[in-house]
């Protein structure tokens, strides 16, 4: 394939992505979720008041969790209806009548949606970091023996936010996958439960280990151990991308772990996207 060919294909993707971004940016649900996310984020201080001098830790926890959760909710509410809306309004025919392949349409939708999610979470992250800096300056908190508390802002918090971005990349790909093959409501349900299941991947690993080994004198089942082990390996491991628990204590993630986790997130998102494209290619349009 020539560079010109690649450029032409990317142009198609870019056009769909741009339109999707503009369309999503007009969605009121997006602003509602972002506003609610910001409200929860700022309320961390109020909750911190009753926390026996642990305000900053609680602001960090609520902030990081809000960015992740509300980012996923944006992908869920905005993303799951994207393709179906095009099909319902028959606008998909005008798009596909142009020199835009179906896979370009899916990838374009994904890129546009991810751009929207990224823009919203970047905004929330920025508000969170500024808010955290102000709160840390006003009430730095103190340890029991007067030792300096861990730095409120720093590389670990940034790492956690970056990995949250990759987590949302994966969640967005799941939303597009389900959106390309199912109705908006079912897509939302599937995406939500896959998102929830992905958060507990390490618990599935533990379950696989327990099933294979057997618990409290009971004999283990190698078959179920292997099945659950395979489920663990195949399901999206969003747990890997959650380093918020260590970031709040200012513990940085090693560069190696960061790199492998990012590669994993990109590979898994690409895999989901390839499956979405393949399924959409063969889908009978109404």
């Amino acid at each position, binding site marked *: 394939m020539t560079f010109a060919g690649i450029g032409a294909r990317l142009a198609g993707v870019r056009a769909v992505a741009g339109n999707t971004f503009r369309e999503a940016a007009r969605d009121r649900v997006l602003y509602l979720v972002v506003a609610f996310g910001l409200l929860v984020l700022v309320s961390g201080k109020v*909750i911190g008041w*009753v*926390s*026996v*001098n*642990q305000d900053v*830790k*609680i602001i960090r*926890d*609520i902030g990081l*969790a809000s960015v*992740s*959760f509300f980012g996923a909710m944006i992908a869920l509410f905005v993303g799951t209806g994207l393709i179906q809306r095009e099909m319902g309004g028959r606008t998909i025919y005008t798009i596909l009548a142009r020199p835009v392949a179906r896979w370009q349409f899916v990838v374009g939708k994904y890129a546009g949606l991810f751009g929207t999610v990224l823009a919203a979470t970047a905004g929330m992250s920025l508000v969170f970091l500024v808010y955290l800096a102000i709160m840390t300056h006003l009430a730095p908190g103190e*340890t*029991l*023996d007067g*030792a300096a*508390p861990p730095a409120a802002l720093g590389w670990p918090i940034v790492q956690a936010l970056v990995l949250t971005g990759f987590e949302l990349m994966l969640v967005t790909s799941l939303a597009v996958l389900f959106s390309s*093959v*199912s109705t908006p409501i*079912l897509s939302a349900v599937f995406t939500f439960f896959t998102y929830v299941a992905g*958060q*507990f991947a*390490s*618990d599935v*690993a*533990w379950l696989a280990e327990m099933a294979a080994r057997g618990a409290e004198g009971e004999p283990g089942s190698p078959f179920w151990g292997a099945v659950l082990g395979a489920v663990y*390996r*195949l399901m999206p*491991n*969003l*747990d*890997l991308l*959650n*380093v*918020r*628990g*260590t970031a*709040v*204590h200012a*513990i940085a993630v*090693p560069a*190696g*772990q960061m790199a*492998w*986790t990012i*590669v*994993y997130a990109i*590979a*898994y998102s*690409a*895999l989901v996207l*390839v*499956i979405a494209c*393949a*399924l959409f*290619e*063969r*889908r*009978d349009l109404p």
Partner: protein
Amino acid sequence: MTNGKKGLAHRAAGLLGVTTGAPGARQALAAAALLAVAVLTQYPASALYAKTTVRATTDGSVSFREPEDEARWVAIQRWRYVTYMPGRRWLRFASLGNDSLAADAVWIKSAGYVSSEFQSSQKGKRFEWLGKLYAVTMDLDPRWEQACRLGAMILATVGEETGGSVDLLVRGMSASPDSWRLPYEAGVTCLMWPGHGDDAERYFKLAVARARAAGGKSPPQIGVIKQILPNLAAEAGRLDVAIAHARARALDRSVPAVQAASRRQLREWVSQQLEDALEDAVGAFMERAGRNPESLWELRRAGMLAAFDRRFAQAVVVFEDSLARLVEIRREVGPEAGRLPVGSDGDATPEALAASGFMHRMILEGRYAPPEAADAYGRPFLYHPRTGTVRSEGLAIVRVQRTTAILRLASGFFHRRNRRFADSLGELAEWIGRRIAEGKQLQLDWVPVFEGGRPPVHPLAAWGEGYPYDPATGRIALPEKYEVDLDVAARGDLQK
């Protein structure tokens, strides 16, 4: 794929609202390659993740460095499964994997629980779930060092769960292997826990080793901590712990000055403890009869001095005055009283006396006359039937002497600063109280006397006594009856 199989797949997909289509060969290849990359990268990523993230896949499955620590943590499991409160796993699900956030929620819940229990009227059952709340907090966020230390402190003092407090710190120690503060805190807690001196030493050594390895600030001098510990325990309201430590030192003859100081402390704390036991008994009588008892003897006749007698028999015999009184009783009663129990060195030691039950028998037979003559100074307990107030006379004398000395110093201080004497003790107290509130440096023992800016209340105020103050001279007179030396007499003289 056969038509039948394809139809089945389509029907199954249709049920889920999914419209399927078979992917092309090129896409299948790409998907397989990406799947392989995703699966393979998961191995190193999850291995590194497990190293950096202390998130136990099973409750309390973090590995321990010391077998004793592991045993201690296993013991704490009882808190986890016995109550209605959800454990780590359920809270993790509820918070969608945000363990740290769930830990915050449990921590806030524990703060509310402590305050609600303070208001609770259920005596004897307070702070029952405090250990459980802190254990779940640490399960969810094992690296939350502040919560671990603060929780352990509250558990040991307010909750009176010294063992649980150490368990919690051990949990934190395992999750934060670089922290010296957690083993240090565990050492201090063990020092306050009679019979756990060895554990304290072990934790202090660990704290020193960790502090050295980190190259940071060293823990405070452990010897100093040991010396001030009984006072710390007494301030925290743990008189039993304070007495246990002070008694050990009061019996140690190697440093006479330390021994004498410990005995002074011991008298005060034991008298305080006995006074508290009597006031509790008066309160219980009031609840039962709807009125205060006429005298302390009425309490005895009502059989409500069991707790007092127990404390008395265990504690008061450490004092020579009491021993002297016992020798006297024995002389009065004659051989019928039996031999005075003695320790291996021939002295009538408190341990030998307490273990023998001699004192208790004397009390029950009415030969020794508590509560009227039973404080740790060999002086009576005074009782005011109208208010139900009980005061140890010896303790009252000590407090009046001490407070008068402070008032005199404070009056002189007021005069130096204001070029006049205070018009009243109220004005003096208000002035000093304001300085305390403003954070001005004052002698430490002035603080409890003037806290709140109110003049000190005389211990025998119910009997109409007060601190006589002369505004013309700024002098606070000490009545003659308080001019007594309650210091410890030589042990040998009393053993004659």
